[in-house]
Structures are given as C-alpha cells and as structure tokens.
C-alpha cells in the first residue's frame, strides 16, 4: 500500500522524461544517498569500508563503462582491465612527474588518457563485430599490461615493478582514513553515474543504441558509425580509466600491472551482464553480486563446517556454487538483476492484489 503511483501526473514532456519517473523511487534514491554519505561513513567498520564498499564502488564505475560500450553501443569488449591499468598508471605518473598536480585533475586526465587509448583499440570495431570484436579487444588487455610491465618508466623503475600510490589530496585536505577514502570514491562515482545516465537517456545514448540495434538504418539517418562507435569506446574507456585509478588509489594502494589481468576484465563483463545491460543501476547490482557472493559463500561455509572440512575443498566448493549460480541466473533472468528489481517494483505496485 505504500508503493502507489496513482495520481502522479506528468504534465510536461520534461516531467515525462525524468531519470526516475515515480516520486517513491526518487525518495528511495534520496534516502540511499543520504545513508551512503552521512550514515555509512560513521557506522560501517573499516573492513567494510575499505575492503568491500570502496572496491565495489570503483568496480561499479568500471562496469558502468563496460555497460556503455556493451549495453548501449553493443560493442563487445574484453579490454576493461587494460583500460583500468592505463587509468591507474597514468594517474600515478601524472602525480609523480608533475609538481603540485592536484589529485582530481590527475584523475580526470588519467581518464582522458584511457579514453585516447580506448579509441585506438576501438578501431577494429569498424570492421568486426560481436564475439570477434571481443577477441580483438583482448589485444588491448594483453598489450597494455605487457607495456607497463616491460618498460620501467611507467613504474618509475621500481625493482619489483610495483608502484605505491600517492596520497589522495583535494584542496590541501588529505583523505587518509577508510571513511574519508570511501567518501571521495563515492563522490566521484555519484557524479560520473549521473553523467552516464544523462548520456544514456539523451541524444548520445539514442545514437549508441541505434548503432547497436541496426547499424544500416543508423547510417541512413545520417549517423557516422565511425564516430559513434569510437565515441562509445572513448567514454567507456574514460570510465574504466577513472574506475581503475580509484581502484588503485583507494583500494589496492600498492599496484602491480598484473593486477589488471584478463580475469578482472571477465569479472567486469560479468558484472555488466548479470547486473543488467543498458540500465543505470545494473552495473552496481552486478558488481555487488560478483564481489559479495564469494564473501557470503565463504562466511556461510565457514559457519557451517568450520574446521571440520579441508579449507581447499571449501574454497573449491565455493567456486562451483558461484559458477552454478551465474549459470542459473543467466537461464532464468537473462536481462539481469536490474530486471528482477523492475519486476519486484511492478509487483509491489499492485500488492496485495495479483493484478
């Protein structure tokens, strides 16, 4: 009875095309944001803040980038971890080599550098599509990590090839505690998600989806396939780059290039797919699923069996259950968690009636 939308009239086109059409949903989002900004930093444990929430937010941002490319523009890519590496190491070198470089500027510039690299590796999209494009973007994944590993300049000639990220400092204030670092990541992720949602719902997103759904018709409308696809690659890589830099600066802190391996790319892709492609909330749900499911399984199994069963068997079992969960999920709800949320909302609107 609390979730009723009757009587909410949209009397202008602007009101009809709002990001969140219903008042209840807007209130819910506002409450979540208030909790995220004002409650969680003070109540959550340091472990939760820096080991769960910060990587979740950073990877949600990367998955948002993957979603732009795969969900909206329909270009399959397996290079996201490579672009994350570009972002992380670009940020490190900008901070290292330019005196007084503010962190936020370095962060945005590292996103721009990742975007430029993304455009280069997006060029094959003009000739190949689908699964073949995904294979072509593997080149980005392997080449980028190899280059950063091979040439010492990127890691400032560290003998172990591992960089230690600089402090995050904005307007002279140093973000050192887990709560502060969580807040800075949250702020950036909120802003960039708002921008991504605007793009997806506006002219830019329509152009991407036009190319995704029927490229011949898009071209006949006067759209340049070249520019639209490369734009999607650039913006997607920007998100991956910024997400990668945040992942490195607020979570990993000591970073080796091989942290951005193909496995991470796959995980990001799963986040985008399981969360629900071409939705704004999907990447967040997908990232939560992929990150939290193993943690949840782990604690459950430890609680159930504890020391009774060999630890290696437990961890193998976790992997099996995780894999089966993904398969079942893809069979029963291929449109992802976002779709489940939508269904739940639709049910709630009618509750307690069936229809």
């Amino acid at each position: 009875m609390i979730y009723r939308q009757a009587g909410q009239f949209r009397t202008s086109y602007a009101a009809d095309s709002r990001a969140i059409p219903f008042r209840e949903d807007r209130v819910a989002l506002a409450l979540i944001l208030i909790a995220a900004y004002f409650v969680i930093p003070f109540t959550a444990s340091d472990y939760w803040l820096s080991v769960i929430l910060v990587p979740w937010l950073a990877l949600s941002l990367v998955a948002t980038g993957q979603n732009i490319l795969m969900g909206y523009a329909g270009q399959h890519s397996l290079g996201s971890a490579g672009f994350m590496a570009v972002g992380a190491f670009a940020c490190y070198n900008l901070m290292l080599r330019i005196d007084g470089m503010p962190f936020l500027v370095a962060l945005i510039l590292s996103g721009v550098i990742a975007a430029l690299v993304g455009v280069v590796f997006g060029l094959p999209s003009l000739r190949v599509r689908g699964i073949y494009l995904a294979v072509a973007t593997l080149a980005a994944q392997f080449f980028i990590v190899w280059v950063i590993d091979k040439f010492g300049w990127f890691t400032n000639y560290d003998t172990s090839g591992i960089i230690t990220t600089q402090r995050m400092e904005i307007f002279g204030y140093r973000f050192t505690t887990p709560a502060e670092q969580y807040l800075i990541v949250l702020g950036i992720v909120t802003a960039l998600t708002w921008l991504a949602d605007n793009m997806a719902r506006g002219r830019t997103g329509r152009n991407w989806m036009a190319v995704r759904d029927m490229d011949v018709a898009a071209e006949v409308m006067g759209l340049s396939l070249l520019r639209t696809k490369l734009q999607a690659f650039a913006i997607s890589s920007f998100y991956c780059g910024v997400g990668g830099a945040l992942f490195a600066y607020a979570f990993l802190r000591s970073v080796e290039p091989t942290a951005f391996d193909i496995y991470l790319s796959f995980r990001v892709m799963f986040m985008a797919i399981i969360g629900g492609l071409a939705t704004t909330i999907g990447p967040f749900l997908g990232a939560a699923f992929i990150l939290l499911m193993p943690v949840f399984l782990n604690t459950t199994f430890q609680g159930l069996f504890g020391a009774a069963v060999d630890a290696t068997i437990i961890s193998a079992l976790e992997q099996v259950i995780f894999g089966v969960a993904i398969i079942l999920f893809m069979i029963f709800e291929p449109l992802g968690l976002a779709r489940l949320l939508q269904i739940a909302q639709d049910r709630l609107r009618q509750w307690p009636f069936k229809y």
Partner: protein
Amino acid sequence: MNVTTAIQAATRAFAIGGPILELDSISLRFGGVKALTNISFNICEHEIRAIIGPNGAGKSSMINVINGIYTPQEGEVRFRGERLGAMTPQRAARMGISRTFQNIALFKRMSVLDNIMAGRTLQTRATFLDVAFRTPRSRREELESREKAEEIIEFLEIEDVRKTQVAKLPYGLQKRVELGRALAAEPKLLLLDEPMAGMNVEEKQDMCRFILDVNENYGTTIVLIEHDMGVVMDISDRVVVLDYGKKIGDGPPEEVKRNQEVIDAYLGVAH
C-alpha cells in the same frame, strides 16, 4: 488530363514542381550481374513517384543508389541540380533524403518514442558533453525533438504505444513506426521500400492515407516501391516500370497501364 486528376491538381496544397532528383543513365553491376542498365528518369518536387516491376527488377537497387548505399559504375545522380559524385548514406541524409526499408530496420530494443527521436539525430547538435551535463542547449533540443516526435506520433495514430519497445509491436505498427522515424528527419525526399508489403486491406488503407497526408501536409516528395497495383495506380502521380534492370515504362499510371511492354513483363492480362 481527365476531370478527377484536374480536380486533384487544383486542390493540391503543394503543386508538382520541376525535377528535384534526376537520374541520368545509371548502370550498376555486382561483378558480372547487371542490376541496373542505363536507367534515366526524374522525380519532380512534391510528387508521389512509384517504382514498380517484377521481383529482381532492380527496384530496391534503384533506391539504394538514390540514397548512396550503392555507388553506380556509370551515370550520375543530380539532387536539386547538384551533381552527386560519391554519394554516401550520410550525405544523402544531410541533403534531406530519408527512407524506410523493405525488411523493417527499426531499432528493436528501443521504444517507439526513442526510435522516432533517434531519427532526428541530424536535426540536433548537442555534443555528448552537452547531453552529459544537461546544458541548456541539450535540454532545449531534447524538448524540441520530443515535441516534433509527438507530432508524428499523433499523426500516425500510435499514441498508445509510444513507450512500448518496438520489437513487441505487431508488424503493421512497426511499419508505421519506421515511417515515423523517417519523417522525424523532416525529409525533402522520402524513399519508401514496399511500405505495404504483407499488410491486410485495412492496414494498406491506413498506410495510403498516411502517405498521401505526408505529401499533402508537408509537401514531401515521395518515391515508393510497391507491388499492389491498386495502390500504385491510386496514389502515385507518375510510375517508373523496371524489368531485368532496364526501364520499360515511365509516365502517369493510366498511361503505364496501357503500355504493352509493361503488361507483358509485369501486369499480365486477364485470361
């Protein structure tokens, strides 16, 4: 000119003008296959021009030449007196040529409204940064696009499905949405590739009405490929007949209907 056509001509809001598109000795080959051989005809401003002919006659190839998907090996296309060398679909779109496809080519996973608004991509200028930051320009264009799209939605009588994903619509409505998307670009020249294929009589009548109304209200020049002779003879001003990539007839419907070559190749005779 008989009485009815005289009345039609007199009551028409946009009188048929001079040639807007001229095709001069067009030949198109795919390897050894001659799709079009030495075809010349013109399309006058504000008229409804039909292209008919048996399967494989080169009708769709003709449309693809006009909007730049195919480049003919010989001959030239002039649009409003301007010679088009290497025509591309984008260039055609910028010059005001819109089209629909024989097999529906809608953006299947987008809503009807988004499909039609997507058709206005050339009428809008906002960059991705404008859109991302919701600058005044982006918001103004978005509203303008929406208003224009709603005008088309009302015109095509598809108000009730505006937020429906097009893949979920029945075939006849999808054809209508595709016409809407083409209209959203405010074309000078509209190419319709079998807009009534696979429709029942009522749907055909609706579609005819829409085509005539587009021509009447906006003065849009229309090129139409159609197999239903009743429709063609009813709504078109002039007809081109193709057979095996060659032009075998050209003129007003009554005249084409009596052309012996056209009867032999396409229309057939009552037995």
